[in-house]
């Protein structure tokens, strides 16, 4: 009794000639590969069921899955469009944000305490790179080492197949960028020409909490709602400067401080996040700065020495510059530079041609504007050198401003 020939370990259908069917199968798989690639290019994923629809060949399933795998890797598949349903023990609930090194999701641990976390996920397409994986893990390790009330805590690193992630505290709130956008959106007008005058009530509205809750961490005895906003934002930046000081004391530079990387909880607590570039010693900044616009939006917060690629001149003062620019933007609701595009911004940063804070935002007390100006000096030697000095000067200036304008200290 003859036995059916084997194909990939499975019996071949009896009416097939092995030689011709091999060629036919190969041709079919070639066609399927192109369809898989096209689907991944268009929408980021595809299933074996789709590709085998109308083709009565369940025996080809494993080879089709291999083709999908190949197509994903060849396409360096689009990470953002492929939202995972879960990573390791965590169920993905919603996307919180999307950044340079993947996405951050609200997730819930399905084992143990069932806690909610912010899960930062490095998608498989990015994880193909050993350097990117190392960078991602370095960020998780740096965060885990830094125990500070204004730095989010990392709980664990998760590996799930080719996907790498780490779980950290979920902060219910907005970024400072979200705060600025929320105020501008509500206030209307063109922020480059006439930004709205912010008030403490705007913070309450954006955070969706009562105004009294916004101020509870430190009384601002002033009836001036805009001054209360200035005090609120300045105190948050002072808190972040404390977190930055801890990082600096451990020899770590953040190098990417900007409003989008500072979280503000509904309890008015600020957190420094996104340490993706911290201690990234192998990352040559000169390779990342285009001759004109390659650095774009971040250029508005990056120090001149970072943008010019003078890595030897980058230090704690570079982070101070970025935190100063962040405070500027959050107080004035506009960037420190008036250029219409990244090229102009780069040139202005390089020349130190920013719009003076007191001109951009007349509601900012001169004492505070002066400190921000010192933090953003073009020449690092003339700049406030450390985060602790910056925090100390901000405290003094804020107290003086509040005492002068409201007759009470902050």
């Amino acid at each position, binding site marked *: 009794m003859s036995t059916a020939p084997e194909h990939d370990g499975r019996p071949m259908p009896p009416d097939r000639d092995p030689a011709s069917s091999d060629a036919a199968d190969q041709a079919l798989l*070639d066609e399927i590969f192109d369809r898989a690639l096209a689907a991944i290019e268009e929408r980021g994923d595809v299933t074996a069921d789709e590709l085998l629809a109308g083709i009565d060949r369940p025996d080809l399933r494993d080879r089709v899955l291999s083709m999908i795998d190949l197509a994903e890797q060849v*396409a360096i598949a689009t990470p953002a*469009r492929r939202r995972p349903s879960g990573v390791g023990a965590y169920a993905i609930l919603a996307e919180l944000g999307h950044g340079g090194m993947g996405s951050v999701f609200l997730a819930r641990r399905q084992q143990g305490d069932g806690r909610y976390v912010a899960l930062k996920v490095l998608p498989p397409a990015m994880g193909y*790179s050993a*350097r990117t994986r190392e960078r991602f893990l370095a960020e998780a390790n740096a965060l885990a080492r830094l125990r500070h009330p204004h730095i989010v805590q990392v709980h664990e690193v998760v590996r799930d197949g080719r996907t790498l992630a780490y779980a950290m505290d979920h902060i219910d709130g907005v970024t400072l960028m979200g705060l600025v956008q929320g105020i*501008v959106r509500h206030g209307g007008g063109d922020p480059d020409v006439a930004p709205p005058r912010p008030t403490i009530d705007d913070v309450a509205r954006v955070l969706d909490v009562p105004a009294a809750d916004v101020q509870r961490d430190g009384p601002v005895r002033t009836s001036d709602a805009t001054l209360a906003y200035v005090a609120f934002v300045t105190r948050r930046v002072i808190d972040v400067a404390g977190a930055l000081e801890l990082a600096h004391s451990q020899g770590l530079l953040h190098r990417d401080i900007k409003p*989008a990387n500072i979280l503000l909880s509904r309890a008015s607590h600020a957190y420094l996040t996104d340490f993706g570039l911290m201690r990234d010693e192998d990352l040559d900044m000169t390779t990342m700065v285009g001759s004109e*616009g390659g650095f774009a939006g971040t250029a508005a917060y990056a120090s001149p020495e970072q943008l010019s690629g003078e890595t030897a001149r980058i230090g704690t003062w570079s982070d101070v510059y970025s935190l100063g620019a962040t405070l500027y933007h959050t107080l004035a609701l506009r960037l420190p530079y008036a250029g219409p595009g990244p090229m102009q911004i780069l040139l202005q940063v390089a020349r130190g041609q920013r719009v003076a804070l007191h001109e951009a935002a007349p509601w900012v007390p001169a004492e505070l504007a002066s400190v921000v100006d010192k933090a953003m000096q073009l020449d690092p030697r003339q700049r406030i050198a450390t985060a602790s000095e910056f925090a100390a000067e901000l405290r003094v200036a804020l107290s003086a401003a509040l005492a002068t304008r409201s007759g009470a200290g902050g």
Partner: protein
Amino acid sequence: MFDEREIKDNPLISDSNGAWQELVDAMNPASLLVLIQSRMGPDLLRRSTPEDVLQDALMNAWRDRAKVEWRGVRPFRAWLLTVIDNRLRDLADYEHAQKRGGGRAPISIDAPSRGNASSDGQRPQWLVATTTPSRMAVMREQAVAIRTALESLHPDVRDVVRLRVVEQRTLEQVADQLGMHISAVRRRLVKGAQEYQRLVMKHLSGRSIALTPADQLTSALDSAAEGADGPTARRADSSPGLGRRKKST
């Protein structure tokens, strides 16, 4: 305002950073950098970088997105490539004019424009996310891996992979451009993709690359072509590897 479903169906109607960011990701920006660099002459590369050109093109695309009919990611990417080509032509014209001692600087496509702002009055914040240092580092690294892999591919499959995977042309367009039968293109695409994937991943994982001997790849192509091409396969190229193909009997 548009709901989430509508934005998913047409990301061009959204002002959200996330929707635009997803679209940029979907277009595989690293391979766009490779394409841009391949289209820039040495003079242009001295004055500008592929990242600058891509950034400019993305800003232009953002500004003009309302004028584009949404037909999917691939058509949008094809449109973006025409924007890139126009920008490269402007830069090249300027370069030539400079050499002749004149010429006005090409107006940057990110020149002041009311349309350059999103509906909340802010400058488009996707710029921040698209070009953060970490993001740019990943894109650059992937671009180098893609370029290195393409250069290392056997000539018999390199053009097929470049046209289909990097330029994202259709198989029919590739077949037409290379003067090949579509089944032959399909076969070479799979073979080339396997080799390309190996080279890209090896590069990204930082290990040294042991190239598949050219003869071995050619032999694999030849034997596969026996079954796939058939006697009707058209061959316009005259690469030495394929020249050794046995005649089918």
